[in-house]
């Protein structure tokens, strides 16, 4: 399967009047990765096609889209107000009016899960953005400076790697109060290490490539060099790792909320719902089952999508971290 002859029919959106061979080097890993077809107009189109072919990733994407939509629309589609209690109708198993049952205060579990999704997704996305910002900045500074500075900065990352992070998040939450904004920041603040390493590695290797050197020779400013030529080309690994950060952060939020250190009542996230459920599971098992299921399916989908993206964007990396 080597070379241009191997390319299948070019997709309609894939031709912009540019000879394909000019963009996609036929030698690019053709031997190492049998999935490589090298026929797209750009690496992004190619990646997209590879992603589309990955059934698990597509399934994950579909499920996620459903969950996110449900979370966004929660105020309109939820059958009950999320904090309406009905003590006479407390802790009932699923019925036709309460599809997933009610909790001990008679609150509708489906509604609670829908609202919990808002918190869980918000934390997942925002904390990932925080970690992305810190990691990319730190990594590109270390990578561009090189030498001593780079060595020192990476040494700091190494040291931080060896520390028990959740403890620092817990300490941060204890100190600055258990509100949701602190939760984003605390979680993001401890999740940037791997991102910094990845970005730094990419910057180091791309910086020495010919196209960057030639841009430099033309007189591009250092900022333009970094953003336009280096970071843009490192986008693949960055996107992949950010996607994999989302489930990690969501899991951590749930973990904190489970311990009572995250989202505070009457707000609910999937973690705090699971915590309430675990306390009452002996008599009302559905209270742990449904929030747990929602969380598990979401994390699984995110992992499918993340793995799919990695295979699509970054063919050199084998799965199995």
């Amino acid at each position, binding site marked *: 399967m080597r070379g241009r002859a191997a390319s299948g029919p070019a997709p309609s959106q894939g031709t912009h009047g540019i000879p394909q061979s000019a963009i996609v080097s036929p030698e690019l890993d053709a031997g190492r990765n049998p999935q490589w077809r090298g026929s797209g107009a750009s690496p992004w189109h190619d990646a997209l096609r590879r992603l589309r072919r990955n059934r698990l990733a597509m399934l994950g994407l579909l499920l996620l889209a459903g969950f996110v939509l449900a979370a966004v629309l929660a105020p309109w589609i939820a059958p009950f107000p999320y904090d309406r209690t009905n003590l006479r109708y407390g802790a009932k198993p699923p019925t036709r009016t309460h599809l997933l049952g009610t909790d001990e205060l008679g609150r509708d579990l489906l509604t609670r899960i829908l609202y919990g999704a808002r918190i869980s997704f918000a934390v997942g996305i925002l904390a990932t953005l925080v970690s992305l910002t810190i990691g990319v900045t730190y990594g590109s500074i270390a990578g561009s400076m090189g030498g001593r500075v780079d060595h020192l900065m990476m040494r700091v990352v190494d040291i931080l*790697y060896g520390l028990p992070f959740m403890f620092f998040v817990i300490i941060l939450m*204890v100190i600055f109060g258990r509100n949701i904004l602190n939760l984003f920041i605390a979680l993001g603040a401890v999740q940037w290490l791997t991102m910094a390493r990845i970005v730094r590695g990419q910057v180091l290797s791309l910086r020495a490539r010919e196209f960057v050197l030639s841009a430099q020779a033309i007189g591009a400013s250092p900022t333009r060099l970094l953003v336009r030529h280096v970071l843009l080309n490192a986008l693949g690994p960055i996107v992949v790792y950010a996607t994999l950060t989302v489930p990690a952060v969501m899991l951590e939020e749930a*973990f904190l909320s*489970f*311990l009572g250190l995250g989202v505070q009542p009457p707000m609910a996230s999937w973690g705090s719902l699971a*915590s309430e459920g675990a306390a009452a*599971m002996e008599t009302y098992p559905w209270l742990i089952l449904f929030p747990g299921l929602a969380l*598990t399916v979401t*994390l699984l989908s995110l992992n499918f999508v993340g793995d799919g993206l990695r295979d699509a964007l970054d063919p050199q990396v084998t799965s199995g971290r």
Partner: protein
Amino acid sequence: MLGYILRRVTGFFPVLFVIVSLSFFMMRLAPGGPFDQERALPEQVRANIEARYHLDEPLWRQYLRYLGDVAQGDLGPSFRYPDRSVNELLNLGFPVSLTLGLCALGVALTLGGTAGVLAGLRRNGLVDYLTMSFALGGVSVPNFVLGPILMLIFALGLGWLPVAGWGSWRHLILPSITLGTFYADYIARLTRAGMLEVIGQDFIRTARAKGLREATVVLRHALPGAILPVVTYLGPASAAVLTGSVVVETIFSIPGIGRYFVSSALNRDYTMVLGTGVFYSVLLLLFNLIVDVLYAYLDPRVQVR
């Protein structure tokens, strides 16, 4: 090798210094203290309490005092359990947490290692497909969901195992599985990847050509090379097991350090939270060092300098 270890250990001190200082000041800057209550304490009582814990001294004096105490291995009195020192509480909890952690790592290594080897041997076979989907599924079930569900099935439903608590080996089974499964999945993936890399190499073909039994080829020749990535993962894994054990100890009412940590965090018992953090940091630094040394021992190509 000895020089390397010594140098690494000396390197711990600045790290610990930074950790202790940072967490100390963050704690003291926090609004509200452990003795804030609904009803204001009489002036004299408050002054007495503050004098006892040296909270009336200027901040820098408190800081120096704390540094000195920590350097001597004394983590101070607990704010919430007035007659106990943090050291006593850690001494009480640590053997429990250690037992749980080691059992969980054991579960993770056995389960993950076996699954990974089997999957790697039959690439794209049924076993490979099953174990890898299982692994992906396992990574996605949070331990605080898995724990209660296991408890529901095996303790409350079938009555095979005790529901919670600590004491006999039977109490260990459910918590270890809960804690270990997540890492078993990662380890399975790592072993599989390592196996795939090793199994195609010449020395394996030679071993087979010599007529060795398949079991010998796999266990003696392929496995040591294949588990190298797993060894590097042990450092982060142990950190995660420590953290995970916070939740598992809470779920199964196990009297380990993790439970103290959570209750002290909820009660703003600063010395206890700080002490636990410092203790865990030391533990992890040591563990990472052990892993690095072990790695150099397993892979002769690695030179420690």
